[in-house]
């Protein structure tokens, strides 16, 4: 029954492409699209009654079939995907005005691909669905009408594909050495040899590039900032979580080298601090949120590297909700005020958006009882000695950068038009969901430490403003012609090669 969760959105996507060749877009596109995006909720509720549960497609045995399943590892990933996609789908009903049949078909393909990747328990099946979602993402980033959006889509394509092929190479080595591709069967017949260790390092590097974590983050700011607004929410919300599920699957099946875990912990903290520093220097609101994604992905990798799988699951769920809420709210403001510069946007006349953005900023900073604080507490319990101080400093840094965003948005400026009520309602619903899930999971209210964090963050913000840090401008390093794009790809691919070699050498000495 859970395989229908993937088949029905695919079916509706093909129906949409059929009607778009006959130019019957205006009448039938929207109902088909909404049906295709909301039907998987029905199957999730039916399958929850008999969870945990696995099914082998076609009725074959486990050695010869593809296994898919729903247990407590994937449930929250799947729930986050359905919530974020429903919100983005309702938002994009009003956002796209021409070529609607084709855009909706691509969105439904991405939906089917993401659901398929989260329910799979077989490495090759997971790779295929992740590719379906990624290819739809490249095309959707490219349809934006902004300047240099197609350049961003091309860079995203080349790097994501480089990572995919290396991931398949790693799976090939695992198949050569164990003879199985199914996660359960590999776990039963596992004997660790040196080749499997190398394969795991290669697989982790390729998944780190796809998730946008520090040394390999270069495609992320352009792609997430120049995509259309609902697509940015989907990309930052859920498409970068698909590699995280892959890392979780690898971590559960194999026992990973201890040197690699320490290296991952260092990279995770580097990513958190790098993201915070660059967030403070941004003026474009969507680029600020994209660098925030780089930073928060560092938190999730940190949780994986201290062997805390509950932390990974809950933090991914929390981050999907708040990042997509922030992108949808920023999109509502950008749409009506026609600018992306922080100095020209304001939420003064719209109380609903002001409450949503403030609530989501508090959630991302870890204030209780929002869902972010519950996830951060789980990570905190697993850390020891001086890593705990680094964690507190990182929390204060995140709060500072979001105070910066709210400070610029709260200044009164003149406003030409009001945002659409559909967009405002969706962002408010996302904020309510973060509060509700926080209370449902049972986050404890820690008033003193929250007030202390906000206090220190405010002091840091005032100090930075006094030193005029917010007026520093970053210049782009490469020119924007076609030769410039090729040189940029050369430089970053070279950096990828160097990081790859360093990882391989450091994990084995």
């Amino acid at each position, binding site marked *: 029954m859970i*395989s*229908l969760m993937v*088949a029905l959105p*695919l*079916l509706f996507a*093909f*129906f949409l*492409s*059929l009607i778009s*060749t*006959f130019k019957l877009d205006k009448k039938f596109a929207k109902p088909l699209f909404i049906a295709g995006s909301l039907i998987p909720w029905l199957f999730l509720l039916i399958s929850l009654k008999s969870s945990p549960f696995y*099914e*082998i*497609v*076609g*009725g074959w045995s486990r050695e010869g079939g593809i296994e898919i399943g729903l247990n407590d590892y994937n449930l929250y990933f799947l729930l986050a995907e359905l919530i974020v996609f429903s919100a983005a789908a309702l938002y994009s009903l009003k956002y796209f005005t021409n070529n609607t049949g084709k855009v909706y078909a691509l969105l439904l393909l991405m939906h089917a691909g993401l659901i398929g990747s989260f329910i799979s328990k077989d490495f090759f099946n997971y790779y295929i669905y992740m590719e379906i979602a990624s290819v739809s993402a490249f095309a959707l980033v490219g349809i934006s009408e902004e300047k240099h959006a197609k350049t961003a889509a091309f860079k995203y394509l080349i790097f994501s594909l480089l990572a995919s092929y290396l991931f398949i190479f790693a799976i090939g080595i695992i198949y050569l050495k164990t003879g199985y591709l199914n996660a359960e069967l590999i776990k039963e017949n596992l004997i660790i040899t040196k080749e499997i260790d190398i394969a795991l390092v290669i697989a982790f590097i390729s998944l780190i590039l796809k998730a946008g974590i520090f040394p390999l983050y270069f495609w992320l700011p352009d792609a997430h900032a120049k995509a259309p607004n609902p697509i940015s929410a989907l990309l930052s919300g859920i498409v970068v979580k698909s590699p995280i599920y892959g890392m979780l699957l690898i971590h559960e099946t194999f026992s990973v080298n201890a040197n690699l875990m320490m290296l991952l912990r260092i990279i995770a903290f580097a990513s958190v601090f790098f993201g915070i520093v660059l967030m403070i220097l941004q003026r474009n609101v969507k680029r600020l949120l994209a660098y925030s994604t780089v930073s928060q992905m560092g938190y999730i990798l940190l949780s994986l590297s201290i062997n805390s799988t509950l932390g990974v699951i809950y933090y991914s769920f929390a981050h999907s909700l708040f990042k997509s809420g922030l992108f949808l709210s920023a999109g509502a403001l950008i749409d009506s005020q026609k600018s992306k510069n922080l100095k020209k946007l304001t939420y003064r006349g719209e109380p609903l958006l002001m409450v949503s953005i403030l609530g989501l900023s508090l959630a991302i900073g870890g204030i209780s009882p929002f869902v972010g604080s519950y996830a951060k507490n789980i990570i905190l319990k697993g850390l020891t000695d001086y890593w705990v101080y680094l964690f507190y400093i990182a929390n204060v840094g995140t709060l500072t950068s979001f105070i910066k965003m709210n400070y610029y948005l709260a200044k009164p400026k003149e406003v030409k038009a009001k945002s659409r009520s559909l967009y405002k309602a969706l962002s408010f619903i996302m904020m309510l969901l973060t509060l509700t899930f926080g209370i449902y999971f049972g986050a404890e209210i820690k008033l003193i430490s929250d007030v202390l964090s906000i206090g220190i963050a405010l002091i840091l913000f005032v100090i930075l403003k006094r030193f005029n840090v917010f007026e520093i401008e970053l210049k782009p390093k490469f020119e924007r012609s076609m030769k410039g794009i090729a040189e940029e790809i050369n430089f970053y691919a070279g950096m990828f090669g160097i990081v790859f070699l360093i990882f391989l050498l450091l994990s084995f000495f």
Partner: protein
Amino acid sequence: MTLIVRTTTKLVSPFMVTYAAYLMLYGHLSPGGGFQAGVILAVSVILLITSHGYKRVKRKFRLKEVSLIESASAITVIMLAIAGIIFGSFFYNFLRGGEFGSLISGGIIPIFNIAIGLKVGAGFALLFYILLRWVESD
């Protein structure tokens, strides 16, 4: 292109379609299958495009018809998979039987191969049409 090239490709193209049909139908008994047949089907149209020019071929194999074949065969594949649920699980092979090694022994596999072959062939031809719209030459 010259007269010799144009006449030769006109004569060779139908045989390539026949070869693609053989690969589709015998895919479960000898090397072949849906994707390979689809590629050859697409090449038979693309060969005509390179030798005769895009505008002339577009008048015979219209864009709307190619697009219709692509979407319709994709819908057939998924309907076939969902129909398996009535008999067991998703994608169950519900037409078993027939002697080992004969043409009918595959169940739903030949139908699946035909649908995939048509989709892939139509898809690649459509891809060339769209890329050539930008680079018009004859």
